[in-house]
């Protein structure tokens, strides 16, 4: 029975303090975290390249603004709910178990400078993670999502939703304690944010598409979906390479921070990341070559990113050959799911984030659970997936649906017609280019 509900004030349930990091591990993780924003830069470029040329400046400015808003919202509100490694949390008791569901960190990052070193590193990791998670839905709303709405979405995610999932997975929440409470493996393992960043971001992207609707002319009445290819394949593919550098750093840092991987195991984590991405892009290359007669650059980019996303869950837990297989399967699934979403379910997702981050993250979590050599780990991962789909998705939908009433997501029809750059910024990204009229508006 529920003996007590939130909040226990003062918070009464400090999570188990993991063993302290060595000085070498601390320095390594700090350096890696300082490199990992390259992943944000890569995803921002991919988001921009996959949109239209008349919305490119708004898209890239949106990426910057969203990162800024997410970081501020997380610092002011979210970090308190996310909690810190070894910190306190709010819990209720059910069936004789303590369910630590919300972090209880200090307000406004109070006392951060005097916190234990690994708690500070964990918080820095979460800062980068929240910026990453907030970026993901922006790409899906490309060409019709207003800048102010993108910022409001980022603020909501960073202040309310991401902290919940981050606490559950990383800072002693109920998912992390599935091992103690229910003898499930080592509890839920999310070494580099497959759940807290990618699945959450992918599900948020789905909700953004649901709420904002498709781009004008994408699904003409009585016709098939109109192809609206990205405007700059160079941005997209260079963004993938940039993202790889950031991902390597993020995966290795996460392995040290959240699964306590020894330093000697870190090269394998990096190799696994490389193999997962490589396997995925090779598979997508082959699938699109067979399907369309020629490889598709933007789908190959999506496959590459899906491999990286899957590696976020699995790189620290599996062997290199298993990582390659995970990547191969992610690479096969990605182009097929992109096509199914667009043609069969009328989902207009310009960046492919729903498949890349949502489905790729779910696949990574399942594969990590199935392949990790720990009894009960698979079930722990499934319970976490159940929490993401069963709690996080409806919560995000409710929040975004309400937010859309206050801050309409979708731009006015005229804005979509002339392009987001001219409508929202007053100038285009490529002023020397002639903007052609789109056939779909005739």
């Amino acid at each position, binding site marked *: 029975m529920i003996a007590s509900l939130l909040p226990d004030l003062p918070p009464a349930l400090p999570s188990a303090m993991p063993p302290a990091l060595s000085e070498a591990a601390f320095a390594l993780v700090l350096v890696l975290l300082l490199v990992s924003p390259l992943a944000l830069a890569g995803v921002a470029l991919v988001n921009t390249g996959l949109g239209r040329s008349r919305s490119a400046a708004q898209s890239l400015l949106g990426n910057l603004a969203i990162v800024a808003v997410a970081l501020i919202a997380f610092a002011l509100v979210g970090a308190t709910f996310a909690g810190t490694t070894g910190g306190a949390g709010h819990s209720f008791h059910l069936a004789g178990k303590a369910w630590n569901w919300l972090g209880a960190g200090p307000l406004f990052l109070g006392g951060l400078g005097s916190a234990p070193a690994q708690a500070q590193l964990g918080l820095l990791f979460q800062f980068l993670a929240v910026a990453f998670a907030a970026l993901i839905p922006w790409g899906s709303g490309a060409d019709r999502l207003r800048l102010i709405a993108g910022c409001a979405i980022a603020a909501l995610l960073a202040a309310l939703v991401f902290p919940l999932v981050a606490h559950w997975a990383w800072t002693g929440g109920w998912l992390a304690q599935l091992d103690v409470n229910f003898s499930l493996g080592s509890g839920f393992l999310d070494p580099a944010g497959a759940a807290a960043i990618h699945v959450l971001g992918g599900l948020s992207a789905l909700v953004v598409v649901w709420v904002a609707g498709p781009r004008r002319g994408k699904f003409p009445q009585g016709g098939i979906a109109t192809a609206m290819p990205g405007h700059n394949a160079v941005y997209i593919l260079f963004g993938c390479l940039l993202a790889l550098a950031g991902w390597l750093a993020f995966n290795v840092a996460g392995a040290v921070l959240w699964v306590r991987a020894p330093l000697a195991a870190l090269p394998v984590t990096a190799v696994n990341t490389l193999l997962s991405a490589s396997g995925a892009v090779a598979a997508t290359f082959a699938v699109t070559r067979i399907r369309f007669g020629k490889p598709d650059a933007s789908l190959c980019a999506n496959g590459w990113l899906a491999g990286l996303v899957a590696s976020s869950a699995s790189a620290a837990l599996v062997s290199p050959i298993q990582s390659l297989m995970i990547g191969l399967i992610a690479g096969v699934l990605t182009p097929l799911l992109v096509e199914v979403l667009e043609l069969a379910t*009328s989902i207009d997702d310009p960046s492919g984030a729903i498949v890349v981050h949502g489905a790729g993250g779910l696949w990574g979590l399942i594969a990590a659970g199935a392949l990790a050599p720990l009894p009960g780990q698979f079930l722990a991962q499934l319970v976490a997936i159940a929490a993401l789909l069963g709690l996080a*998705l409806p919560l995000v*939908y409710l929040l975004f649906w309400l937010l859309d009433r206050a801050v309409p997501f979708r731009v006015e029809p005229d804005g979509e017609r002339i392009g987001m750059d001219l409508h929202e910024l007053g100038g285009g990204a490529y002023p020397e280019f002639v903007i052609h009229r789109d056939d779909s508006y005739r």
Partner: protein
Amino acid sequence: MKFAGLLVMPAGFFLAIAALVLFPPSQAAPRAAFVLCGLAVEVLGLVVALRGHMEGKGKGRP
């Protein structure tokens, strides 16, 4: 229809949690089956929500 699907999804989550609470670790098989059933309910809810989105195609869509 979309709302109905989204309301079904938390039911699947509580089914998965019920599996952990009701079955001890020694009963691994029924526990796993219950969790899988919970996930199946969530997937069903997601499919219903996606179908609800598709129904909007051609009706009031931009």
